[in-house]
C-alpha cells in the first residue's frame, strides 16, 4: 500500500509503461491458465477416448444396457445403466438437499438470532470438510442398516443411501451460497414488503427468495456438480452392481465409481482402458452441459430482473 502513496522513484531501472505491460501480461496469463488447463484436459480425454471406438460400436456404447469389460465370455461396453444410476443418485440428492438447504439458509439469514447463527454457520462449514471416505463408511455401517429397517429390505446399499449421503455433502455449498444470495437482496425490498403489511414469513417466501433466485439456482447447480462428480461415497454406499437400476431401493453403479473401480488395474492401451476414458469424456460433457444450461438460465434471469 505504501509504495502507492510514495512519489515515483526516479532511479527505477525499468520504465513505468513497460512495468505496466509486464504486469498486464502476467495477469493475462493467470486469467487464461484455467482455460488452457481445461482445453488440455478435454483434448487428453478426447484423444484417449477415441481409440475405444475402433473396436466398440459407438451406438452400442451409448445405448448398450450391459457393461462388462472383464467378462469371462464376451466383453460388452454399454453405459446406459451407469448414466441412469448417475442421474438417479444426483437427482435424489438434489430433491433432498435443495429444500433443506434453502430452508436452512432462510433461517440463518432472516430468522435465527445472531448467537445461534454464530454457532450454526461454522458447523455447516465444518460439514464440508468431512472426507468423502468417512461419509461413505457411515453409509455402510449406519445409514445402510437404518434404510434396511425403515423400508423392511435386506440391505441398505442402494441409490437412496447414496442420494442421502450426497445430499449431506452438497448441503454446505447450497446453504452458504443461498444465504449469501438472500443477504444480498436489497434491504429496500424487505422494508417495502413489510411496509405493505406482509408478514415476515410472506416477505421471505414471496419477496426475498424470488429476488435471490439467481443465486439459489447457482447454489443448486454447484451442489449438483458436487454430487455428480463425487466418487468414493457412492462407490462405498451404493452396492455398485452393474445391472440396470430397478428402483431407489436397489443397487446402482455411477459413472464415477466405474472409472474408479476399473482404472486401477486395467492394462494400458487396451480397449477397456480407452473405454474408461470415454466414460470420463461422457462425464465431462455432462457437467459441461449442466454448467452451460445454468449459465444461460442465469443470464436470462438477470435480464428479466433489470
Amino acid at each position, binding site marked *: 500500500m505504501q509504495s502507492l502513496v510514495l512519489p515515483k522513484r526516479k532511479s527505477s531501472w525499468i520504465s513505468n509503461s513497460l512495468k505496466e505491460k509486464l504486469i498486464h501480461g502476467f495477469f493475462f496469463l493467470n486469467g487464461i491458465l484455467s482455460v488452457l488447463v481445461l482445453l488440455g484436459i478435454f483434448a487428453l480425454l478426447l484423444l484417449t477416448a477415441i481409440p475405444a471406438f475402433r473396436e466398440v460400436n459407438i451406438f452400442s456404447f451409448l445405448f448398450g444396457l450391459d457393461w*462388462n469389460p472383464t467378462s*469371462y465370455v464376451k466383453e460388452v461396453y454399454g453405459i446406459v445403466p451407469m448414466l441412469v444410476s448417475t442421474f438417479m443418485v444426483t437427482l435424489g440428492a438434489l430433491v433432498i438437499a435443495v429444500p433443506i438447504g434453502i430452508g436452512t439458509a432462510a433461517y440463518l439469514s432472516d430468522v435465527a438470532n445472531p448467537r445461534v447463527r454464530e454457532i450454526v454457520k461454522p458447523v455447516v462449514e465444518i460439514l464440508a470438510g468431512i472426507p468423502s471416505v468417512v461419509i461413505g463408511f457411515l453409509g455402510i455401517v449406519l445409514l445402510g442398516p437404518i434404510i434396511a429397517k425403515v423400508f423392511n429390505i435386506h440391505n441398505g446399499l442402494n441409490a437412496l443411501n447414496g442420494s442421502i449421503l450426497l445430499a449431506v455433502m452438497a448441503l454446505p455449498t447450497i446453504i452458504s451460497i443461498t444465504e449469501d444470495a438472500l443477504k444480498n437482496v436489497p434491504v429496500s425490498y424487505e422494508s417495502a414488503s413489510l411496509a405493505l403489511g406482509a408478514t415476515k414469513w410472506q416477505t421471505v417466501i414471496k419477496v426475498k427468495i424470488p429476488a435471490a433466485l439467481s443465486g439459489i439456482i447457482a447454489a443448486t447447480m454447484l451442489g449438483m456438480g458436487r454430487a455428480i462428480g463425487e466418487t468414493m461415497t457412492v462407490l462405498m454406499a451404493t452396492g455398485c452392481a452393474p445391472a440396470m437400476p430397478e428402483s431407489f431401493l436397489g443397487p446402482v453403479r455411477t459413472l464415477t465409481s466405474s472409472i474408479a*473401480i*476399473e482404472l486401477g*488395474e486395467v492394462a494400458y492401451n487396451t480397449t477397456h482402458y480407452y473405454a474408461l476414458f470415454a466414460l470420463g469424456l461422457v462425464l465431462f460433457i455432462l457437467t459441461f452441459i449442466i454448467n452451460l444450461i445454468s449459465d444461460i438460465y442465469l443470464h436470462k434471469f438477470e435480464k428479466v430482473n433489470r
Partner: protein
Amino acid sequence: MIGKKTLSLLIAFLMLFSAKAHADMLQIKGSDTLINLVQALSEQYMQKNPGSYIAVTGGGSGTGVAALINNKCDIANASRLMKAKEIEQALNNNVKVNRIVIALDGLSVIVNADNPLFRLTMGEIGKIFRGEVTNWSEVGGENMPITLYGRQSNSGTFVFFRDAVLKGDYSQKMNRMNGNAQIVAAIKQDKSGIGYVGVGYVKNATGLTVLKVAANPKADYASPLNSADVKSGKYPISRPLNQYINGTPTEKIRDFIEYELSPTGQRIVEEEGFFPISEEYKKFNEKAGF
C-alpha cells in the same frame, strides 16, 4: 548445517558401497498376496543365516513374472499361474521357468448367521453367483431372495473365484464391494447375503456362517476353517501360491526355498494366515527338484 550435509553424503556413499558389497543378495518380486508371507520367511531366514541378504518387493504377480522374464529377479512370487504366452516369452530370453508351490490359500463362502443354511456344493455356488439361482429355497434354504456380494474386477480374488468356481460371468446384480472387510461387514447385516472372502478375514468373525463346501453333490462337505481339509484338497476352493525361478537354482536360491518348504517355514505360512502345502503339491515340488 554443512556438517550435516557432509555427513548425509558420507552415509549415502557408504550405503552405495555396502549395496555393492551385497550385490549377490536375492531379489524376490511379485504378488501382493504373497509379499507379507515371503517377507516374514526371509526375515527369519536372514536371522538364522547371518550374512545372507534377501530383498522382497511387491507390485503384483504380473510385475514379478515380467521381472523374471527379463532376468531382473531371482524369484518371482505369483498368486496365479504363468500364462503360456509368458513362458514362451521367457524361453525367448533364455529363461527356463521352474514353478514351486510354497503355500495354499483358501477362499471361504460366507452367509449371515441368521441364515440356517450351512453348506453348498461348488455347482450351487456357481449357479448362485452366475445369477441362475436367485432364491435361497432353490438350494435348500428359506424362501428369501439371494443378495450377492463380491469383489470388484480389479481384485485377483474376483478373477480367481470367477475362473475356478463360476466358469462364467458374475451376475450383473452382484454388489461390487471395495475389499474383503466390506464384504464381511455387509454379510453381517444382510440376512439374505452371500459373499466370498479370504479365510483370514473370517477366522475370528462373529455374526456369520462360513459355509461347508463340497466339490460335487456326491463328495463330502468340508470347511475352510479346518486346515487339514484345505491341505488335503478336500475343501475345493483353494489356490496354490507359487514362486517361479529360472532353471536350475543357485545354491543360495535353493537353500532359501528349502527353508520355505521346511516344517519351520510352513509353520510361518500358517502364522501368516495361509495353509501349508498339501501332499499333492509336495510331490509337485519334488518333481521340480525340491
